[in-house]
């Protein structure tokens, strides 16, 4: 019963006349465009911020890649080999 009467209420509400949407109220268009203009002017620092943030993320990525690459190749360090050889030669010259 309550469902039927609720449906009748909804049907009646759906038939209620609605206010027609006319032209935009005076000043609304100006307000919207003015805010849009202001937001546009504020865009430059925002672009710079976005660019710097992306550059920082890219730099971190490159750093991590290079660190990972150097860890995966621990045995091929010509500088290390040369240092060991020199160290051996020094030791030999001091204690023949």
């Amino acid at each position, binding site marked *: 019963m*309550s*469902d*039927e*009467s*609720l449906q*009748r*209420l*909804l*049907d*009646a*509400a*759906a*038939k*209620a*006349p609605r*206010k027609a*949407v006319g*032209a*935009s*109220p005076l000043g*609304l*268009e100006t*307000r*919207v*465009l003015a*805010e*849009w*203009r202001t*937001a*546009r002017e504020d865009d430059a620092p925002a672009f710079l911020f976005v660019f710097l943030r992306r550059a920082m993320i890219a730099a971190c990525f490159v750093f991590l890649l290079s660190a990972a690459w150097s860890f995966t190749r621990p045995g091929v360090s010509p500088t290390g080999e040369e240092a060991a050889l020199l160290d051996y030669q020094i030791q030999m010259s001091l204690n023949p």
Partner: protein
Amino acid sequence: MVRARQRDEDAARALFLHLYPLVARLVRSHLPRRTSPEDLVQTVFMKVFANLDRFSGTVPLEHWVSRITVNTCLNALAAEKARPELRWADLSEEQTEVLEAVMAAPGDLEPARNLAAREIVEKLLAQLAPPERLVLTLLHLEGRSVAEVQQITGWNVPVIKVRAFRARRRLRKHYENLMSEKSL
């Protein structure tokens, strides 16, 4: 669209004038109690202009703008935390007569009472959660199809049907509570 994206003010004005009736109609249907429709329309247009670059063109512009409008309204409704309970004593004399007429006899109400019926339904809907209120307004008050609701909200069909079912059940509960006060 292209000129507005390039920040041409005349194009932005033309876009505003083209979209205003759509946005205003949606805002008026889903307006929170204490929010000015003009403020909400302005918020919607700022979101539209700020996201013009993201509009891919895969859906019609009107659908895209409808979704922005509906989401803005839902956010505003969600921010309005208090949902006052509707009591019989809150109704006007005309509204109580409408409810008595609805309960008493089957058939349509007199057309002159439709506006009062709408006011009651809006008060009942104000007690529901924003998405439930939205789906019932679109389906029952605006007479839109599920496909249209999908276009406006972006929700898929099962979500719409489940929300509508639950919303209808909650609305009936609020309605029954209101009617039980009348008999006291």
